[in-house]
């Protein structure tokens, strides 16, 4: 549909910067507002925008539904796995102090892993939910309008 040319080009142009912004929020969360959850949301919103302007099915070629499911599970696993790792290193659950040489670097590593887990899980779940809604055929009935 040609009359949506502006939007299509704009979406293509914006896609990468939004992802970049998501990464910025993800890794800058230690210093400014933001963190895994917010980054995950922004990440998802890039895909939502893509899905809005193009089609959900075209995005599916790059990111399959199964991949999203695996991603969501993987994010949770990464978080919980960090917890179990700290047990293996001899600490309590989610005690990051022992993950690296010094407690603070261990904390940094732990927070990085955990936030990554949050980001992945949230992004995947949000895209999953959006697609689940968008996939349904709408019940177009004139009288509702």
């Amino acid at each position, binding site marked *: 549909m040609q009359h949506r040319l502006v939007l299509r080009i704009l979406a293509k142009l914006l896609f990468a910067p939004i992802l970049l912004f998501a990464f910025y929020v993800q890794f800058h969360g*230690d210093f400014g507002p933001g963190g895994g959850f917010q980054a995950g*949301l922004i990440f998802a919103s890039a895909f939502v925008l893509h899905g809005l302007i193009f089609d959900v099915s075209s995005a599916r070629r790059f990111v399959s539904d*199964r991949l999203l499911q695996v991603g969501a599970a993987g994010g*949770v696993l990464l978080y919980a796995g960090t917890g179990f790792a700290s047990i293996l290193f001899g600490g309590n659950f989610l005690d990051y102090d022992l993950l690296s040489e010094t407690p603070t670097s261990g904390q940094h590593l*732990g927070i990085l892993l955990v936030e990554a887990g*949050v980001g992945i899980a949230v992004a995947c779940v*949000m895209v*999953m939910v959006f697609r689940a*809604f968008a996939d349904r055929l*709408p019940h177009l009935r004139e009288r509702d309008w």
Partner: protein
Amino acid sequence: MLFAFLIATALGIAYLRHLFAVVMLAGMFSLLSALLLLSMDAADVAFTEAAVGAGIATILMLSAMALTERQEKPSNRSMLERLPALAVAGAFGALLIYAMLDAPPFGDPFAPAQTHVAPYYIEQTAREIDVPNLVTAILASYRGFDTLGEVVVIFTAGIGVALLLGGFVARDRSK
């Protein structure tokens, strides 16, 4: 002023029947409350509230509306039938007002909330975690288990939506 906006929006949500407009108002309600949260120094929360309330929630509601209806039907509930709801909401509000009359004054730095556990985070984070953003430090480390719970909540919601709307089931490869 912001509160006046907020209340106007909330009343608008209550009275408008056009669900489309209501969803937009709800999105704006979120933006406004995010602004208010920001004015109370909660930068991270404002960030999240804006992204969630005005972004994802609006889009989800629009999607849901695409699949259901756009117009709220005029209710034939009489005033009498609404009275219980009003009474419950009123009782709830009265209870909270009763509590707040006895509450520590707004912004009091010597209120119990500010003096017991919180100073520890503010003083120790630099030494123990070495991360400037206190919210991140508490979120990911001091109360990291809550955040694990939070991720599991989102995961549960994803599973639930997939279970309900039927998408995203594992493919049976034997077929």
